[in-house]
């Protein structure tokens, strides 16, 4: 398979600087767009490419951009492009790789995205712990300003854009785009009620697009080589390639660029080297901590958004977490719910009060104090906390996904904990 997003990334390769990036075809997409494409042309190519957001939700990128009001119909003022580099979904480790090893690819994607939506200011909102990525992005930005790729009149096109790296002060909720916008405005990162959507009223009340790192890294290649080329990369209905990852008790945990639609079995057994000796696969979260469990019966499914959706889960970030047969599923869900309860921003009651309640019930079961009626309580919590619309954002519904599917696939484990009065895995 042709490597696209990771073509400059290899074990023995140095992270790219401007010279190395350009020597391998970098900034060709930007030069092409600045010389011969209007923002409308770029928008049309991205819409036609069927690129879907790589941050977890899978929303079509072209459609998201199209909701930004046309400049002539909008009040004068700034427009913003924000890169969501706040990678914090449990079990997700793909954006770190893209930013640490090939920062210019992200910057080129951001310039093109900003050009398309008419933004004049852009931010890379990156988690503060990504020290290496922050430094490499800052170095790369300085190179771009020096080479006329950022700032006023980019490559003589008349288009101007400024870009800043904004290291965050923490909290998982900042990955939610409206919470991220509040954090950029210097406030507590409570998600906002929608509508209005950020495309219309985002940062400082101005039109704003927030895209994930991996999404933006696709843009230069699509602009350079076209929508039809991009669509041929996928094996199934989804276009392009994807960074897939596997963590847990496998022989070769890691992150690989593979065609969209690659079968799960190939990812786990070939690329991740299969399960370690003495461990069997019991289940897995296909795309981060807030996706529903799938099990061995789903191994032959393709990693496509709708295929995984039809199986009752979500492709999410595409980085799988493996549950092995020697790890307690109740303990694993408890770890996840504890995380989500801790990371709730505290604004909406079902999330602020419901998640700690779930954590308490799960902890009781795991520590041998569970009662038979606890299972009904958990099912009730799934219905109430998991319902879309009871909360501003998707944190609480996302938290319920591993719990509801654990109750479905590992119900006997829960029952054994309660009947035995202890965790059978310890």
């Amino acid at each position: 398979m042709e490597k696209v997003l990771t073509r400059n990334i290899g074990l023995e390769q140095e992270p790219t600087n401007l010279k190395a990036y350009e020597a391998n075809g970098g900034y060709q997409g930007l030069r092409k767009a600045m010389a011969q494409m209007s923002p409308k042309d770029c928008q049309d190519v991205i819409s036609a490419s069927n690129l879907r957001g790589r941050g977890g939700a899978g929303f079509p990128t072209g459609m998201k951009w199209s909701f930004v009001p046309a400049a002539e119909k909008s009040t004068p003022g700034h427009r913003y492009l924000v890169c969501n580099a706040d990678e914090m979904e449990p079990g997700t480790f793909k954006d770190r790789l893209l930013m640490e090893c090939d920062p210019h690819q992200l910057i080129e994607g951001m310039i093109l995205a900003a050009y398309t939506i008419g933004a004049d200011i852009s931010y890379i909102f990156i988690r503060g712990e990504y020290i290496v990525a922050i430094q490499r992005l800052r170095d790369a930005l300085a190179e771009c300003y020096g080479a006329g790729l950022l700032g006023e009149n980019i490559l003589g096109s008349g288009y101007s854009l400024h870009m800043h790296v904004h290291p965050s002060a923490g909290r998982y909720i900042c990955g939610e785009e409206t919470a991220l916008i509040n954090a950029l405005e210097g406030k507590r990162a409570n998600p906002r009620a929608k509508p209005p959507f950020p495309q219309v009223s985002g940062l400082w009340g101005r039109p704003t697009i927030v895209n994930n790192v991996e999404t933006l890294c696709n843009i230069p290649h699509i602009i350079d080589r076209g929508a039809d080329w991009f669509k041929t990369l996928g094996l199934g209905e989804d276009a392009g390639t994807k960074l897939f990852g596997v963590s847990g008790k496998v022989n070769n945990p890691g992150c690989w660029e593979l065609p969209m639609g690659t079968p799960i079995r190939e990812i786990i057994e070939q690329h991740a080297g299969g399960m370690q000796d003495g461990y069997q696969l019991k289940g897995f979260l296909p795309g981060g901590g807030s996706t529903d469990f799938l099990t061995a019966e789903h191994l032959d499914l393709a990693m496509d958004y709708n295929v995984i959706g039809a199986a009752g889960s979500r492709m999410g970030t595409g980085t799988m977490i493996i549950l092995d047969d020697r790890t307690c599923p109740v303990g694993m869900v408890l770890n996840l719910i504890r995380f989500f309860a801790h990371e709730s921003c505290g604004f909406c009651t079902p999330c602020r009060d419901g998640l700690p309640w779930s954590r308490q019930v799960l902890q009781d079961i795991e520590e041998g104090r569970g009662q038979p009626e606890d299972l009904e309580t958990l099912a009730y919590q799934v219905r109430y906390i998991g319902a879309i619309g009871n909360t501003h954002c998707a944190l609480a519904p996302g938290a319920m996904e591993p719990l509801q599917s654990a109750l479905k696939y590992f119900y006997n484990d829960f029952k054994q904990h309660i009947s035995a009065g202890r965790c059978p895995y310890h």
Partner: protein
Amino acid sequence: MSKSQMIQTDRGSVLTAQEIAEIDAELGHVPYKSGAAIDALKIVQAKRGWVSDECLQAIARHLEMSAEELEGVATFYNLIYRRPVGEKVILFCDSVSCWICGCDDIKQKISAALGVDYGETTADNQYTLLPVPCLGACDRAPVMMVGDDLVTHLDEAKVKALFGDVKVEAGGDQ
């Protein structure tokens, strides 16, 4: 109770000229002053290690916002420290992939070696131990950050190399 000591607080409690200059540079990016609240907190914390009440009040005055509002911002974010921390903060990942790979056991070993639990600072003021959401290095789990450095593939030997001998403790499992 924390074993932390009070480290030298900022006598005088007034922001330095350099801090004010750095905060004012951030003001150029925001339409109103309170928009730079998080940046200002981070600027002050960068040199001092944490944000004292006096500093918080001084920042709030400088940004023309109430100290209460700034306190609400400061206490929301887990990388803003409102209490003194050690020379290096250990951000220990206890999220799901690290948990599967045995981070609970590693955490016990670190706590035993340093004599601190989450939220506490070592008696020699070298380290403060805190949990952190998934550090995005799950293929190298278990992981943690020590200061600015990511430490991967944690095991007993690495803990010992970093923090010295692990005191023998009862009840270690797995």
